[in-house]
């Protein structure tokens, strides 16, 4: 392990916050046996669904918790997929949360630095901004909020993180 020292800003730099509103979050619980059929259905679908964000977590059941953040216009397509799936594997649970909002941002070397997620969660928690889901990979932070909360979160995060001057 090689250790290097770097400059660390007082306020962590970002490339700016992006917000998307009026989205829907779908939570599907897939037993392991259903993953193959789910994948096959997606691959054989005539029309692709364009997502905003995908999260998958393996739970202890064992099953997969699949979270799909979509624009509302894709709801019927997803419902049709689920219906086709349900014909062969009954009991696939799906909960939908709508409307929800997405806030995402990137920053320099976020993937190599500690403390970014803590800064995000800590500041949002301090201002009681509820978070439905969050994903951090590479240099990106993606957060899903209930309706009306993303603009409030942006204000909170703008006090903690530096954004480019407009």
């Amino acid at each position: 392990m090689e250790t290097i020292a770097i400059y660390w800003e007082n306020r962590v730099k970002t490339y700016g916050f992006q917000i998307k509103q009026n989205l829907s979050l779908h939570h599907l619980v897939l037993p392991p046996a259903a993953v193959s059929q789910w994948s096959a259905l997606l691959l054989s679908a005539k029309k692709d669904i364009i997502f905003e964000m995908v999260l998958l977590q393996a739970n202890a059941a064992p099953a997969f918790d699949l979270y799909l953040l979509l624009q509302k216009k894709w709801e019927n397509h997803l419902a049709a997929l689920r219906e086709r799936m349900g014909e062969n594997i009954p009991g696939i649970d799906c909960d939908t949360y709508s409307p929800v909002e997405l806030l995402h941002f990137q920053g320099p070397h976020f993937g190599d630095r500690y403390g970014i997620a803590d800064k995000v969660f800590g500041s949002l928690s301090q201002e009681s901004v509820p978070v439905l889901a969050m994903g951090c990979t590479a240099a990106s932070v993606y957060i899903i909020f209930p309706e009306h909360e993303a603009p409030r979160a942006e204000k909170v995060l703008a006090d903690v993180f530096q954004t480019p001057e407009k």
Partner: protein
Amino acid sequence: MEKKIRVNGIKMSGELIQVNLMQPDDPKDLNALFLKSAAENRINLTFLSCTALGMQRQMSYCVPSADFERLKTILAFDPDLKKNAALIASVGCISIFPHAFSLKFIGLLTHVFHTARLPLYGIATSLSVVTLTTDFRQIDTAVTSLCAHLKLPSNHAPFATKAPEIRIERI
């Protein structure tokens, strides 16, 4: 033969440890506690996914295996963290870009993992990258299986980083 999907690159992480944390029905926020402790112990999170819908709150974090001792310190510090955390000892991240926001593409990835009988511990997407976590000992097999369905540029970057692992220390 199905048509291969064009992607620009694949990256493999070094060896990681995945921490799966379940929040019990308790006011003590284990996610906040873990993130604060990780920051204080200078542990970078290579991968993070958190969900808090209804009563179910589940978190997954991947940390470099080199930070195992620091991770043990965090978990030992709080009995609730220790009790509700499950560790997967040898995990690797595979990042593929771009995903083009295509759910079919995600379906292809889960199809490949299922067909090759590879463990899938988590997926998270960002602006252009989709990251999967799997068994580190099978990460080469996973990439080979994926490459059978993906078309990469002839001059693509190496999948694995050959540079030494680094720890960034704040000054």
